[in-house]
């Protein structure tokens, strides 16, 4: 069957772009025959089973250790749970008894007992129960493959292989990566699956496509864009060039290139330093480079601690986590954004109430001011870790001043009890807010005296200002952070910061956008906090720019009456830059 070019829209699971060719991986294990074992050979059948278990345990321990080095505790716990399954004596003894009683081969008995044990979990509507079945299968597939003598190690991939499979276990993601697989297209597993967590930590692009994907022939050329969820099968040469360009712009290679930059923060052509920062979620490979180059963290998304586990971590776990970050970035600073949950950031459980309109519902600071036990635990953990004097607290989705007042009250209560307990913390820890709701931008002047810094979240600010959901294709043409209405709100916020002497940063996706860079700097933004993969290009562009003309330029852009006009002006500016160099 010849496959024509086909572009599919899937669900983005782990960001990044990869170009390569398809390899279908049948994660369904090999067919297991039912074999009658004579009584005389039952003992050696049991030994074979024990040996397969030993190999599985060894493999899981290796995976756990290598994951621990790269990714920290959350990922290690996934493998700890799998190890517990692989060493469950009670269950394994039952399997051995069945082997002897039924006189059948180990693989057959074990497999059918696992199917029995997981059937109930698999049919549960609860995502956590389903995940549990996946954890059990991750272990049993290993055992069965070891019994049969085939293991994942038998796979040999050509360079630039993109794997297609039903679902990949965290262990498979890790070992396929060691075999140089560069991306994954899967049928199952959402944003909060264990697969997704590990792929994001390793910066491996993953796209979920829920319809049938198995008929794509092996070796077809394929492009995956894990940032937006695009899949291009049998791409044209034009596609290839286009995505390759996008990839070099955003790929993990660019993160390593940060090491080569001469000046951080970057300096404009006429000698003005432009402050930058980085956004981070879970610990990952970029951390070392960022801390080595003394790039501060402008946004640390703490909700991933919750999303990764599906439960709120206790104070001690959080303290250790924040303390680790504070130590890692001891020469710079880290802004910890308190749990920002709700709307598109929910763990797969029934804890959150159903809302008809979650985008305008219980999200950001709103639930935290009601779930005060959770909020207080988090603040207490942050305060305890603040002894390094480099942590700052940031509140998401502030709508009105009362939310700041309430939080400040909570913080002083916690400070008071810490003092009573003689626990040290940073008395002057800074408190900032995110401006993502138009009301907060409009009222920025009266909010600013209450806080130490402002960070603008352009993604939500744009969505709320223009009443356009950015992932809804039907209104995608309306959604633009460069809409003059959004820019006016930015300007209001920046001016409020200046008048009150507090820094204003942007930490939305546009912060690292080369096109809008001269505009934001000209408007007077103090810091641009971007994803690590944007830093290299950003700094290089700053080097080419004359700072002194930016104020005039941005004034003229702000007079535009449409998004189109703004973009045209920015494009002309950029073209002129390129011509000069």
């Amino acid at each position, binding site marked *: 069957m010849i496959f024509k070019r086909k572009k599919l829209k899937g669900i983005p699971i782990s960001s990044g772009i990869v170009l390569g060719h398809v390899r279908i991986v049948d994660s369904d294990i090999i067919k297991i025959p039912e074999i009658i074992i004579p009584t005389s050979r039952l003992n050696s059948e049991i030994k074979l089973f024990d040996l397969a278990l030993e190999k599985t345990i060894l493999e899981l321990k290796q995976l756990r250790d290598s994951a621990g080095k790269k990714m920290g505790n959350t990922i290690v716990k996934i493998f700890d749970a799998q190890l517990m399954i692989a060493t469950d004596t009670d269950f394994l003894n039952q399997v051995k008894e069945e082997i002897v009683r039924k006189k059948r081969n180990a693989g057959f008995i074990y497999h059918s007992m696992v199917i029995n044990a997981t059937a109930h979990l698999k049919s549960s509507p609860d995502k956590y129960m389903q995940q549990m079945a996946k954890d059990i299968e991750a272990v049993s597939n290993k055992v069965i493959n070891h019994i049969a003598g085939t293991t994942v190690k038998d796979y040999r991939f050509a360079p630039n292989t993109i794997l297609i499979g039903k679902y990949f276990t965290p262990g498979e993601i890790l070992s396929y990566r060691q075999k140089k697989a560069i991306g994954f297209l899967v049928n199952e597993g959402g944003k909060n699956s264990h697969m997704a967590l590990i792929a994001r930590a390793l910066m491996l692009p993953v796209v979920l496509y829920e319809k049938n994907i198995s008929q794509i022939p092996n070796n077809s050329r394929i492009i995956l864009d894990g940032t937006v969820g695009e899949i291009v099968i049998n791409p044209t040469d034009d596609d290839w060039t286009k995505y390759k360009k996008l990839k070099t712009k955003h790929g993990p290679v660019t993160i390593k290139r940060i090491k080569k930059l001469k000046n951080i923060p970057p300096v404009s052509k006429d000698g003005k330093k432009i402050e930058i920062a980085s956004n981070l979620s879970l610990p990952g490979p970029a951390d070392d480079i960022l801390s080595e180059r003394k790039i501060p963290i402008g946004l640390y998304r703490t909700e991933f601690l919750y999303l990764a586990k599906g*439960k709120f971590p206790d104070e001690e776990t959080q303290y250790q986590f924040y303390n680790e970050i504070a130590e890692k970035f001891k020469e710079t600073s880290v802004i910890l954004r308190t749990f920002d949950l709700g709307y598109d950031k929910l763990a797969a459980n029934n804890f959150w109430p159903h809302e008809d309109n979650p985008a305008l519902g219980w999200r950001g600071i709103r639930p935290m001011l009601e779930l005060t036990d959770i909020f207080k635990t988090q603040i207490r953990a942050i305060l305890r870790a603040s002894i390094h004097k480099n942590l700052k607290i940031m509140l998401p989705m502030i709508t009105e001043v009362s939310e700041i007042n309430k939080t400040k009250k909570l913080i002083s209560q916690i400070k008071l009890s810490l003092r009573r307990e003689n626990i040290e913390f940073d008395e002057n820890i800074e408190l900032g807010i995110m401006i993502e709701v138009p009301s907060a931008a409009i009222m920025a002047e009266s909010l600013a005296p209450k806080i130490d810094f402002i960070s603008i979240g352009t993604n939500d600010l744009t969505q709320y200002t223009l009443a356009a959901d950015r992932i809804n294709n039907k209104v995608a043409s309306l959604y633009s952070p460069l809409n003059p209405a959004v820019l006016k709100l930015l300007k209001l916020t920046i001016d409020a910061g200046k008048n009150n002497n507090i820094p204003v940063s942007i930490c939305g996706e546009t912060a690292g956008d080369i096109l809008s860079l001269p505009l934001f700097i000209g408007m007077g933004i103090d810091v641009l906090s971007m994803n690590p993969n944007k830093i290299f290009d950003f700094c290089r562009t700053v080097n080419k720019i004359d700072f002194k003309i930016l104020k005039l330029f941005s004034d003229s852009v702000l007079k535009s009456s449409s998004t189109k006009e703004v973009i045209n002006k920015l494009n002309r500016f950029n073209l002129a830059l390129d011509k000069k160099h």
Partner: protein
Amino acid sequence: MIKKTAIIVNDLGLHARPSAMLVSTSSKFISEVFFTKDSLRVNGKSIMGVMMLAAEKGSKLIVETDGEDESEAMEQIIKVIESGFDEIG
């Protein structure tokens, strides 16, 4: 032998981590531990067994402990379940 009933209070039910916590708690004792939900009775020291219960929030779990340290075991197991596995909500 002691027998008590406990209710799963945490919102996510007995998913992987709470199951693991229950098994590690039960395994600390010499006594035998069993959990029964509906008609399914499993060894409390077996992660596969506990996972198989697929106990959601609100399910009733009968806990049995049997052996020399049965009261201590019961006390700790009930404590872990009632604390919602340190999970909030």
